[in-house]
């Protein structure tokens, strides 16, 4: 089987040995693969990358090659399998290291070190390697061996403890929030910085993204505020002391509508669209301080005005009047009726050998000359073993057959 890589993308010619699994690490390496890097995703059937086994599945039918959670994080990559419980698999991984610019993992502290694939080992195999470790809480310390997922990180890193409705208990994010932007994002930025440094100096380096430390940066200004003034943020829900009317209001057909008016010009736009409403012509509302001073009553009046209206129509009218307003869009709205995302080609559909057409999130940043995009479907388990082990490493057919029988590629 042959695979062609586009040579004119920003990361063309960069090869990554990718031991990351789960949510956070794979999104970092996927962005690299979308922009031309050759990313070799290492998996094993003895312990599936868990998104393969948690769905959602194409057509609702279970199967480790059918999970769209997995495909959305692993498109554009090549997939190989190595059963690292066998010495020969470890040896094959070690033979790949000298061909790779970046080696990355998000295992618990010490796992790859015990296999002989730690930074010391890899940098002796390839002196300028960029070795990236993304442990939960760092590779040393009293909690280094502890496990977690995005939901526990939300709690540990404080974002849960500031997110709630006013006067109520903390609710926290409804997702494994740090897995989806902050931790892959910091990892990716660090890798790109390390590539730039290597180009200047010829030197690789060790990069550690403690997912706890990375996530804590989301509260940077509030950490400063606490250290200076012992200021502990109380939950504020969808309230603001800078804008009124402001909030999330019910609209027709069970929808929700977000509105944020902070300037007099925006207020004038809203008042025009809401012509005839008493609150819109109330002189107390002509200034920002007047609106903020009467925010509770104003929000209630605006809520009653919004409630019977179709939110999609209303947001068009308000935006035309230069008022920041928008529907709380669901996944269905985003995929099926958002003309902006459609015009920008945000969603990409590719055919997958077992799943049929699969919808991927595209790249949120568009490079004008060398745009990244989904390069190929996410790999089936072990799809590129033959390419990588036989063609690239030159392992002969007989050895491959023998090692297959010995579960080296399981």
């Amino acid at each position: 089987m042959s695979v062609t890589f586009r040579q004119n993308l920003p990361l063309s010619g960069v090869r990554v040995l990718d031991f990351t699994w789960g949510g956070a690490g794979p999104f970092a390496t996927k962005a690299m693969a979308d922009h031309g890097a050759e990313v070799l995703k290492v998996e094993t059937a003895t312990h599936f990358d868990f998104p393969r086994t948690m769905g959602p599945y194409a057509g609702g039918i279970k199967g480790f090659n059918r999970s769209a959670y997995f495909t959305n994080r692993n498109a554009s990559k090549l997939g190989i399998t190595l059963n690292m419980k066998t010495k020969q698999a470890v040896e094959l991984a070690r033979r790949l290291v000298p061909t790779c610019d970046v080696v990355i993992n998000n295992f618990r502290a010490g796992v790859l070190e015990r296999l002989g694939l730690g930074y010391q080992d890899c940098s002796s195999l390839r002196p300028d390697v960029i070795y990236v470790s993304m442990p939960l809480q760092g590779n040393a310390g009293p909690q280094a061996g502890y496990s977690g997922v995005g939901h526990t990180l939300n709690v540990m890193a404080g974002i849960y403890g500031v997110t709630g409705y006013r006067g109520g208990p903390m609710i926290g994010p409804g997702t494994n929030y740090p897995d989806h932007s902050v931790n892959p994002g910091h990892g990716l930025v660090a890798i790109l910085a390390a590539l730039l440094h290597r180009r200047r100096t010829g030197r690789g380096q060790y990069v550690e993204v403690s997912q706890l430390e990375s996530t804590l940066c989301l509260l940077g200004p509030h950490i400063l505020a606490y250290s200076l003034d012992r200021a502990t943020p109380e939950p504020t829900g969808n309230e603001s002391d800078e804008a009124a009317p402001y909030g999330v209001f019910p609209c027709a057909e069970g929808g929700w509508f977000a509105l944020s008016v902070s300037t007099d010009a925006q207020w004038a736009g809203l008042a025009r669209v809401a012509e005839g409403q008493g609150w819109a012509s109330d002189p107390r509302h002509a200034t920002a301080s007047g609106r903020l001073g009467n925010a509770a009553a104003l929000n209630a009046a605006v809520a009653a005005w919004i409630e019977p209206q179709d939110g999609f129509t209303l947001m068009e009218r308000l935006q035309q009047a230069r008022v920041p307003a928008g529907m709380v869009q669901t996944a269905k709205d985003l995929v099926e009726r958002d003309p902006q995302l459609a015009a920008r080609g945000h969603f990409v559909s590719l055919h997958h050998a077992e799943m049929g057409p699969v919808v991927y999130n595209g790249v949120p940043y568009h490079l004008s000359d060398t745009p990244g995009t989904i390069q190929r479907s996410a790999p089936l388990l072990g799809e590129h073993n033959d390419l990588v082990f036989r063609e690239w490493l030159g392992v002969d057919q007989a050895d491959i057959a023998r090692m297959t029988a010995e579960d080296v590629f399981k």
Partner: protein
Amino acid sequence: MAMTSRTPLTPRPLDGVRVLDMADRSCVYATKMLADMGADVVRIEPPGGDPMRHVKPLDGASGESLFHVFMNTNKRSVMLDLDTPQGQAAFRRLAGAAGIVVESCAPGYLAERGIAYADIAGQAPRELVWTSITPFGSQGPRADWLADDLIIQAMGGLLTLTGLPEREPLKLFGEQSCYITGLHAAAGTLMAHWHAVRTGRGQHVDVSAQECITHTLESAIQVYTTEGIVRSRQPGRVEAGVGMFPCVDGEIFVYANARMIASSWHNMVKWLKEEKIEGAEQLDDPKWVDLTFRRSAEARRIAGEIITKLTETRSKYQLYDQLQQRHILCAPMSRIGDLFNNPQLKFLNWFTDQAVGERMATWPGPPFRMSETPRRPPGWVAGLGRDTEAVLGEHGPAMKEAAE
């Protein structure tokens, strides 16, 4: 002298790269990343100052914006009035000499003044990378729509996933879209810069904050496109064994989920029985691994009562250690003040001290650690226009006059 230990022995990744920074509160985390990695980031502020200087939280003593402080440490400040020909000419010269421009101006704002990418790219070095960050992207039918943190979390789909089912969707706290958008923008900018360094060719990078949010919805898009299910808000204790539980000094979050990492639930049941917690035996019934039952109000209530009997007599860090030793996913509830006492962060000496104004403050440490090129530690925050004369002076006497 303290500076000595902070001076790296090797260059930082972006040393010598000039960045012009007009990123607002919707995305400024992008240029913070570049400044942390050594770039010479020059913030362009209007007369009267950057509106970000008023974004909360504020320093209780000085009234200074700590959002602005956190985002703009180690940058220089140049004041330019882009509504005047002199200001526009100065901007043109600075942008033409920069390696990277990052701006979040409304589409058309710079073009009206003759200082957009299209106006400057022709006279700038070919390596120039120009990143435009807007709520909905520079192109498309809604390119000129307006949004702030609330509207973009709504339009990008994140709001549908947070909050209680019986209440309204809930915005994440504290300008989260700035971090999400900023990180995507930093990555796109660095990819384009890497390409420029290798090939000599710069380009435009068009970042849509909405797309950044839509990329941050876990698998909600795929849940809909494969199974036709529209994901929505879920109860706090979404299933048996998951949720916040009381302990003697606060709360512990337990994630004894039976789907993703099933062993957490089984290990939890085993420990409850070892501790002879009343009612634990009934959790052996096979119905407790059935997801539909686990999500029922009855299952959540019964499991909640049993687990509470175990947690309410212990401290949260005691529980954190004990649950982890038994391979049960969990985390101690952490309000902001608790973060400073996290033993792991203390051990790794993560926080760093640096004055803000007259007072010593504790800052977050680095988001990632690099062995050869540690980030620039937080330092000074420039006052409005502090570096106008110096920066314009680097570009010849005519520019210096424009500054005066």
